[in-house]
């Protein structure tokens, strides 16, 4: 059965020296896990803020409603949201010194599912996932994201997505900084997850990833809101016309 993510009048602000600054100004979005939603929008429009706020990042104070399969997430902590099935692939994945990727993922699996593969079977299971993403198996022993190149970090995010199997994944600029081969490999990972039932919300600046990940909906994010929605053709229009012109047609 498909999962549903419902975001209603979602607002988010950060604390600044001059007081709270509202960045998200009432986001509404409904998505089913058998759909792929793409979010595009100019720099600074609030896409990452939306991604972080949905995952309860500590910098943001939020209001409104976020429901996953009917469960209200608004008051839950990041780990509780992850347990409800939400996943965030970050624009800038964080380094965790001294914690090998394999240990991290196993601990995470255990936290999410209540049990993890045995220590003995885990390396070969993980290796299987890594092979599909053409990751050197040595990455399992390296500390999480430490010294990973930009592209390697993104690949490691998709590895986590595939291992953890959430209900819904928000992927923030997962395609930025990827070479052409990596873009294809990462896209394949996203599509595999989607086929296994994971809903996808893909934040991107480039239509090139849409060659591999076919969106059902494209939303134009502007000044903290969804300003326009459409199908794949909206992405093409953005690419051709640019944001200024498109937004101009709105006002």
């Amino acid at each position, binding site marked *: 059965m498909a999962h549903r993510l419902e975001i209603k009048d979602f607002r988010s602000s950060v604390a600044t020296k001059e007081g709270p600054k509202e960045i998200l100004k009432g986001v509404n979005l409904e998505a089913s896990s058998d759909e792929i939603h793409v979010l595009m929008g100019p720099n600074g429009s609030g896409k990452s803020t939306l991604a972080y706020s949905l995952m309860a990042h500590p910098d943001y104070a939020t209001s409104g409603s976020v429901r996953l399969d009917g469960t209200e997430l608004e008051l839950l902590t*990041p780990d509780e949201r992850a347990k409800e099935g939400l996943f965030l692939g970050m624009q800038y994945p964080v380094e965790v010194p001294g914690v090998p990727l394999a240990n991290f993922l196993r601990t995470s699996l255990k936290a999410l599912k209540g049990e993890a593969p045995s220590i003995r079977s885990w390396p070969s299971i993980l290796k299987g996932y890594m092979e599909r993403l053409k990751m050197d198996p040595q990455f399992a022993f390296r500390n999480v994201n430490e010294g990973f190149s930009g592209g390697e970090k993104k690949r490691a995010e998709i590895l986590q997505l595939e291992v953890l199997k959430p209900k819904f994944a928000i992927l923030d600029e997962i395609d930025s900084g990827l070479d052409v081969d990596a873009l294809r490999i990462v896209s394949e990972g996203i599509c595999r997850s989607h086929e296994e039932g994971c809903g996808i919300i893909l934040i991107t600046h480039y239509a090139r990833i849409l060659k591999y990940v076919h969106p059902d909906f494209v939303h134009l994010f502007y000044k903290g809101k969804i300003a326009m929605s459409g199908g794949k053709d909206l992405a093409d229009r953005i690419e051709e016309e640019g944001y200024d012109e498109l937004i101009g047609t709105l006002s």
Partner: protein
Amino acid sequence: MKTDDGLFEPEGTASFDFGAFGNMEKREEWKYAPLDVAEEFKEPFKPSLCARVLLNGSEPGEGKAEKLLSPRDQVEAAGFASVGRSFPIRVPEGKTRIEVKNKGKRDSLFLSLRFGKGKSDAVLFFEGEGDGVYFLDAAAPEESQVTLTVICLGNGKRFIYDSTRIASGAKVKRNLLCLGGGFDRYSLGAYFAGPRAEAEMNGIYFACGECYTECRVRVAHSVPDCKSRVSYRGALIGSSARSAWVGESIIGKGAPGSDSYELNKNFVLTPGAKSFSEPQLEIKNGDIVAAGHSSSVGYFDPIQLFYLRSRGIGEEEAKRMIISGFFEELLSNMESGEGEEEFRAFCRKMGVSNGAQA
């Protein structure tokens, strides 16, 4: 102040006379430690002889042992005047295990460790809730490869004075794990007695609850072409935990080609806990390879925590992983494997893990 071979000459008072140091409250070397603890150790005392020493499981013979350096603070001088028993120990190649257990009253004892040629790996434990002043005097001969790991466990009040003389071409690794739960003030010195020698000094310390841990690490370069690396990391748990780290690196006039680096990082886990970190570099020779230091006191990075939590890992467990990760690299540098088990056990007790046993 000079050793027999006239090598080690840092500035400041050095004397076997405990009265030579002046008012403790005004002394630089006592600016961090709680002086009420030092109070009982300011003057020579009658040692309880409670401490037991085991060398590979059996008691070594007592004898005359030579202290190579003069005391550099009052407790050291008073403690040395109070030494009840001395143990000159020859450390052969291969593995050696030494235990110093004190479950009784205030004691003072002296261990001199003379390492043999070749490769030796010794571990020394300080255990028990007893108080004391302990002296450790190690010497690594020419071209030897020495690893000496000291592990402090238990809740005693301890002042430890430990120095290592490193002869030419020798490679010495000095690891320290301060995992006590009482009071530890550990002074560790390494000095080079001949060129082309190397010292690697790794340390991990915890200050938990009410406990106080101070590590003072001194490396003296007074001969050419030696290399030293000092790397210490500490964590503080509990709002009244206190730690201090002082790293002195001295490069003398006669030490061209010196290469030294010292690093200290502290992780404050509980608000209110206080950690002092003070690197001191004293360079009297312009013709060196490198001399650097870095020192920091840090707290949990909320973004790192968020990242782990966004993967379903609960706050407490995420914190434990971050702390354990903080020590992991240093632990693997210690190589000898000694202390790893004690460290892991200590971490389990403190609820710290890097996910390896998840």
